[in-house]
């Protein structure tokens, strides 16, 4: 089941999606992280962020609305405590990053590039509540490309950049093309959909409700850019969902909301995919 993602060898194609695996420690209680293809951290910003007001998560049919506001300890505490622990687990650690400016992105990339054990960087280019969180607002594909270029320029060559794009059927191909030209090794399609909380606050919508849309975005990118490496994400809950995305041409997948419903979801999916292969052998 091993796979190559932007030069990065993964034991299997199943990664934990950003923001859905806690610090890793919580998830590790339900299964070794080393059994997974990789772990994507919640988005780390240069300075600590306290996050937004409650409610942060609201249930909606087959989905979750979330407005956590990128709560995270900031880069330094992350490098001092969370990252070394994750690296020790023997899993591929992909650090998701978000910044308020191009300079901030570059600064984060420089410091992460010097940290031992970072397997890849995922640039969060599509935070569904970006305008209210002060994150660099990526509205146009060229904004996304300039962020990717800034990060790519300041990273050692061995660390691939993954660009996480908005689940926007109309613009996703153009976005994918520009970030790949700017140096991204792969595109992650797609992030939570922009949505609103019942009280009107900006939020993201994730879960099985968005899966068909994510799949449509994947198929659009695959058709237009046959050489692009794609990581599929959006409402994947079962091994069957993974097979569907793999058949649509993704190299790897990320499991997000499913973990909030069942903390063993990623491990279960990996086991199911593995038993498939053993059955076939």
């Amino acid at each position: 089941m091993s796979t190559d993602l932007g030069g990065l060898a993964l034991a299997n194609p199943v990664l934990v999606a950003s923001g859905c695996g806690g610090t890793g420690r919580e998830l590790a209680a339900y299964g070794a992280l080393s059994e997974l293809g990789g772990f994507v951290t919640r988005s780390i910003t240069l300075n600590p962020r306290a996050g937004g007001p409650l409610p942060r998560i609201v249930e909606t049919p087959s989905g979750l609305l979330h407005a956590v506001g990128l709560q995270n300890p900031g880069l330094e505490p992350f490098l001092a405590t969370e990252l070394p622990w994750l690296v020790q687990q023997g899993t591929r650690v992909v650090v998701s990053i978000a910044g308020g400016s191009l300079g901030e992105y570059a600064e984060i990339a420089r410091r992460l590039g010097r940290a031992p054990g970072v397997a890849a960087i995922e640039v969060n280019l599509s935070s569904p509540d970006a305008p209210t969180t002060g994150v660099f607002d990526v509205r146009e594909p060229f904004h996304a490309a300039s962020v990717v270029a800034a990060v790519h320029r300041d990273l050692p060559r061995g660390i691939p950049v993954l660009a996480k794009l908005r689940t926007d059927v109309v613009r996703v191909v153009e976005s994918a093309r520009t970030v790949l030209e700017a140096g991204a090794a792969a595109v992650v399609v797609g992030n939570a959909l922009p949505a609103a909380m019942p009280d009107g606050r900006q939020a993201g919508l994730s879960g099985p409700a968005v899966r068909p849309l994510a799949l449509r975005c994947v198929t659009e990118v695959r058709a237009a850019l046959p050489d692009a490496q794609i990581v599929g994400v959006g409402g994947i809950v079962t091994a069957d969902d993974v097979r569907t995305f793999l058949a649509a041409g993704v190299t790897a997948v990320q499991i997000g909301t499913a973990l909030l419903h069942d903390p063993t979801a990623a491990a279960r999916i990996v086991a199911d995919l593995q038993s498939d292969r053993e059955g076939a052998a």
Partner: protein
Amino acid sequence: MSQAVDPVARTPLHVTGEVLGVKKVGAYHHLTLVAPGIPERFRPGTFVALSVGESRLARRCFWIHRVKPVGGYGATLQLVVEAVGPGTRCLTGLAPGARVEVTGPLGRPFALPKEPVSCVLVGDGYATAPLFPLAERLRERGCAVTLVVAGADEAHLLSALEARRSARSVTVVTADGSVGRRGTVADVLDEVLDRAAAEVVYAAGPLATLHAAAAAAETHGAWSQTAVERPLSCATGLCQGCPVPVVGEDGVSRLVRACADGPVFRGDRVRWADLTVAGLA
């Protein structure tokens, strides 16, 4: 955590449980479940998260009320459910034999005193549930146990009769005066703490009750342990949906998670005023 504790036995499990029975008691339902491995790991103050179908992704969390053998089953879980929404109504409508995904025991339990000191346990509504097994453990340690059981009315008093068997003295408080003293927990605490010469106060209930218990404990020079209940989505520490502002032992203010870092916190560490504001919505 002391070195003698086997860390594996302290990690939560995710299992398929089976409903043994649902019994209506006053305003609540007592749900009895077989959930292999979870009762053995239970400590008072921990809780479980249940799934309610594939399209409702947020978990429903309940205090563990009792752990006891039933029929041929070694140990079962008894939970107290207040049917207030579609998820909880779905659970209280389950027939014996129904399967349900259970994760637990989750969270950090009440800390037990090393010495046989006088303890006052304050419970309000269904949240009184974990105080009964707590009372048992405290009595095993030679602690004098005084109970305060509160609720909106008689129907919302949890097991007040049983309370008389669990404690040296019981004070019953209802908001409408239908049983016991009329008023709130705050009205009786000074008197109860004085009479019991309390050294530790344990509290479970709505925020106002917890805050009152923590404040009364502080006035009387007692320690307090408060079980903070927040709306939870994943319940496993992954989603950051349940922030609680606390002051750490280093004096630094930080946001922790009710589910994974709590639910039990030292009452003097919680920033109650900020918690109330954050919980408005």
